[in-house]
């Protein structure tokens, strides 16, 4: 299929003038119309866009309300699946419990490429994506996240706020 | 087989090159060609004559000698050729950049990554790497990782039945 070729027509001296003037006026019409249309942008730091719940930010541990912690069994699948080696998981064996207990889950977000391998390989579905998208910091260390700490903070703050209200 | 491809294959058979038809569904190309370094130019001219275009030129570091891989295809009919040329004793292959001008950059890149020299190339300066990295050759394999050419080729047609993917399928099932 050929694209339209009428744009290439020989128009002659006055034909070109007429064609040109008309096209320029049509262009002005388009922009004038736009001038009176509502704006489509968002004043970013003042207002923020609604982010879709499917947004895939960095990983977070999933809160399990029954245990009050997370479901991680320290199998290390996520750390092995990570293409950039940015996950470190450590756990220790405690007396009277089967399996290990999570003691450290750190994510080096500076290296993460947001592929989602860790979330997909997790056998206990203990990992999920965070919704944070406007992340900024001054040092690299600010992006070395301690996910256990983050989990605690996320689920203690509402409680503390409620307590403060009372 | 498209008649134009057939003509090309017939002409290639007249050169001292080994042309083998392949299963497109399995490999994604139609013909595999093995060629010696001194026949590369004749082959490229033949490709040019038969309306093929150059898809890419790349290197492949294998024992006993590295290969230069060319791929040709056509705008008008299906027919994808993968050409493997063994470098000569000086680690050289003649350039085809005067036949397919697009090869010039690909050859420079291959020089960057593999150190394969393209004889008579008019301007074999590093393209992608910096000029001081002329001896870096990042894609060359280490001694232990280096494999023989037979270890990275499809098994010969006779033992098609023992294709590994058949095994894969069995694992799936």
């Amino acid at each position: 299929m050929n694209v339209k070729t009428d744009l290439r027509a020989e128009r002659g001296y006055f034909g070109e003038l007429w064609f040109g003037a008309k096209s320029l006026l049509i262009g002005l019409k388009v922009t004038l119309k736009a001038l009176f249309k509502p704006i489509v942008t968002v004043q970013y730091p003042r207002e923020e866009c609604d982010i879709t719940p499917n947004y895939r930010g960095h990983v977070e541990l999933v809160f399990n309300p029954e245990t009050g912690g997370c479901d991680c069994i320290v199998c290390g699948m996520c750390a092995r699946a990570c293409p950039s080696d940015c996950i470190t998981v450590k756990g220790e064996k405690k007396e009277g419990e089967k399996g290990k207990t999570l003691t450290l889950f750190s994510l080096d977000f500076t290296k993460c490429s947001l592929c989602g391998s860790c979330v997909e390989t997790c056998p206990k579905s203990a990992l999920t994506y965070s919704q944070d998208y406007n992340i900024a910091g001054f040092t690299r260390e600010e992006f070395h996240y301690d996910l256990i700490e983050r989990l605690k903070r996320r689920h203690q703050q509402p409680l503390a706020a409620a307590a403060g209200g009372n | 087989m498209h008649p134009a491809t057939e003509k090309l294959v017939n002409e290639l058979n007249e050169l001292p090159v080994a042309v083998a038809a392949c299963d497109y569904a399995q490999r994604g190309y139609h013909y595999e060609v093995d060629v010696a370094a001194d026949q590369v130019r004749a082959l490229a001219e033949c490709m040019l004559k038969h309306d093929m275009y150059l898809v890419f030129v790349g290197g492949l570091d294998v024992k006993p000698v590295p290969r230069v891989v060319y791929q040709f295809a056509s705008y008008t009919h299906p027919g994808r050729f993968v050409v493997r040329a063994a470098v000569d004793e000086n680690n050289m292959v003649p350039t085809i950049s005067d036949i397919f001008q697009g090869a010039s950059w690909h050859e420079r890149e291959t020089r960057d990554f593999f150190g394969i020299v393209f004889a008579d190339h008019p301007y074999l300066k590093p393209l992608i790497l910096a000029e001081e990295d002329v001896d870096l050759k990042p894609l060359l394999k280490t001694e232990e990782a280096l494999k023989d050419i037979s270890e990275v080729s499809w098994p010969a047609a006779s033992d098609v039945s023992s294709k590994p993917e058949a095994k894969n399928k069995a694992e799936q099932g």
Partner: protein
Amino acid sequence: MPPELLRMIITAVLVVAFVFLNAMILGYMERKISAHIQRRPGLMEVGPHGVLQLIVDGLKLIGKQLVVPEGSSPFLFRLAPLLSFAPCVLPFVVIPFSRKLQAVSMDVGLIYILAMTSINVVAVLVAGWASNNKYSLFGTFRSVAQAVSYEIPMLLSLLAVIMMTSSFSLEGIIEAQKYYWFILIQPVAFIIYFVSGLAETNRAPFDLPEAESELTAGFHTEYSGMGFSFFFLAEYANMFTVCSIATILFLGGWKGIPLPFYDYSGIIWFLLKVYGLLFVMIWARWTYPRVRFDQLMTFCWKYLIPFSMANLLITAIMVKII
């Protein structure tokens, strides 16, 4: 102090103040109009709807260092912004803002203005040459060639009006439009003048001397701080001058239906017309792509000059007959 000297000082202060104010208004207008054409809000941060942004920008520019590049000619490099700014201020002296508001009444007012606006090209030449930058030099080449060739249709189109009024005096031309505006009988001259005016002030689609996508910033690539802001001021002052000439010659100057505030209706009408034309200039800039250099020249020599000459000829015949 002799009253004449006092008058001159007051005029000078007012004119320079007006140039700065005009640049601020136009800068705000340009950014707001472009924003809304592109469907974004534009300036919103400093002051309500960002009205104070231009003041902050001005302060920022004053505070910045004027970096003189290595290998440049430091004297000429520093001279060029001043050379660009000074002649732009002078035309304001003779522009009749209303019947009573005019600093100096001059019989050859029009010629004076045209002479002053032509100096700008020298400043651009000096700026581009002194910068020791190839992009700047490109911008300069283009600017000089463009300004010189577009002067011809511009003057030819103005000549048609001058022939009808037999006067170079701006008040005289306004008085001659007692019953109708000259745009009605000289539409071709008006269009040619306006297009040449766009080219003379290096406004898009004729902004080749500072074509961003080709020459990064053209002749003022190397300028920073106040050096840059002088070019910026000069551009807006030139735009105002071009539009006020168009208003005076074709749109009846300060003439208009008397408004309730009688004393000021002249100046209100004048500014309304001028800023209306300036709006069109800005509107066009944010609509069109940039022309190529040879096309710019072709357009001038193939269309503008023949048309303005034909227009002049017809005007001459009509003046003779009537």
